[in-house]
């Protein structure tokens, strides 16, 4: 018999004697379950010497020897989903529609701030919502939609925040509500002159199109949009959105979500100046001249990538470096 010590993540210890040549991992787990309350074999994960022990294997397969320690961690209950987004939303969401028209203006204003600014506290749900619409604009298949000032809200959200947001049932419900009720949407738009200016005929048409509304209120679609954003990188997504907006007059209405992502660099070129909220801002190469120099000094020699990274991070060099290093396609 071999003595093993089971060390639990909560500091409990169990001493067991087993025959490593006949005892499977599952049998060991059953033994542990007998010693510990609330720890059925199914919720145990055993780790020995850098390996996760598989239920069907014999302990001897892992060279467990006398006096050795096996670590046990419980596969705990599911972690609370999307804690950040949920916390941000829960405050104002009790009456998601009643205040919508009145609140649309500040939300749009907040969303129209330059990319990478985060929405002010207290207004997170609506700003997120506009970011969400921008996300759809970013798909490129819906010309005009991307022209909404709300598009800019997207820049403030990292892909994972987007994903979190889209997977938040509260947001889904809210989006559904808005898109399933054209009146709410229209009153939101009508109450905001900035939005009205932005509203192209195509966009009005789109908002009246039940197919689009159905698609937009479909959580799967939202997730797909979010997924594409994270795949393409936030920068490319934002660029794609504004690119689509700029081209809305000429772009064929064909639904082609991928086209906009094929060439992030090109869309990046479309970024400065095309967004109404940023009309007064100089192009990124001027705005970020200092930071670009810094990046060059650090050895990041590709100006297009550098500008993209700085645009995404709003000129934060450190974040830009992280972005450059972590972007898979660079």
């Amino acid at each position, binding site marked *: 018999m071999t003595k093993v010590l089971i060390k639990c*993540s909560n500091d409990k210890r169990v001493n067991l004697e087993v025959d490593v040549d006949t005892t499977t991992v599952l049998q060991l787990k059953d033994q542990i379950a007998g010693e510990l309350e609330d720890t059925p074999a199914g919720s145990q994960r055993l780790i020995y*010497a*850098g390996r*996760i022990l598989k239920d069907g294997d014999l302990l001897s397969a892992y060279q467990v020897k006398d006096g050795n320690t096996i*670590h046990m961690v419980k596969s705990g209950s599911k972690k609370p989903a999307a804690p*950040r987004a949920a916390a941000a939303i829960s405050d104002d969401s009790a009456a998601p529609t009643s205040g919508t028209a009145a609140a649309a203006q500040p939300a749009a204003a907040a969303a129209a701030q330059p990319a990478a600014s985060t929405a002010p506290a207290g207004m997170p749900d609506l700003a997120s919502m506009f970011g969400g619409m921008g996300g759809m604009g970013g798909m490129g298949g819906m010309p005009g939609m991307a022209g909404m000032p709300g598009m800019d809200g997207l820049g403030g959200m990292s892909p994972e925040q987007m994903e979190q947001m889209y997977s938040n049932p509260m947001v889904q419900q809210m989006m559904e509500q808005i898109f399933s009720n054209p009146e709410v949407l229209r009153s939101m738009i009508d109450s905001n002159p900035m939005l009205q200016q932005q509203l192209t005929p195509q966009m009005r048409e789109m908002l009246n199109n039940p197919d689009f509304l159905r698609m937009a209120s479909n959580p799967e679609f939202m997730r797909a949009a979010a997924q594409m954003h994270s795949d393409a990188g936030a920068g490319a997504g934002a660029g794609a959105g504004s690119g689509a907006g700029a081209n809305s007059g000429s772009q064929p209405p064909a639904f082609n979500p991928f086209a906009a992502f094929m060439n992030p660099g090109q869309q990046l070129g479309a970024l400065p100046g095309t967004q109404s909220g940023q009309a007064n801002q100089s192009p990124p190469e001027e705005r970020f001249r200092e930071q670009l120099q810094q990046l060059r000094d650090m050895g990041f020699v590709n100006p297009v990538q550098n500008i993209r990274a700085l645009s995404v991070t709003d000129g934060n060099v450190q974040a830009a470096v992280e972005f450059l*290093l972590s972007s898979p396609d660079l």
Partner: protein
Amino acid sequence: MADGSYVVPRNFRLLEELEKCEKGTGDGLCSYGLDDSVEDLVEMEYWLGTIFGPEHTTHYNRIYSLRIYCGPNYPNVAPKVKFVSKVAMGCVEPQTGVVSDDINVLRSWKPNYTLMTLLKELRAEMAAGNNRKVEQPLEGSVFLADILPADQRNENAPW
């Protein structure tokens, strides 16, 4: 050595680390052991590690498996490390799972660092900055973890 630093004998040190990991010292949040699936165990080059994802992160409650390669000059030269379990982290190459040599613990590696130091630092990295909240791939999915045939691998491409 010319600069006055001393050279830690590799095998002596690795045997010491092996003994420690089998005894199970440590908290179980990080664990490592010799990879006995490779043919040559005497060299103690290939190791396996696990990291239990830190709390309050998207990694929480996952157990990540890693491979570690200790070259002939370990511990005077940093080991190489790659994730077997899929993970999304700034310092991890998204196709292969290889951890960038540029992270702090590898870049400024010191001979008194151990494999446990490495794993703990990687775990800290998971809880740092953006890595904390990056959405993670499906739990249980893996990077291609093949090790090259013995005659094709070298210190720079140990996998």
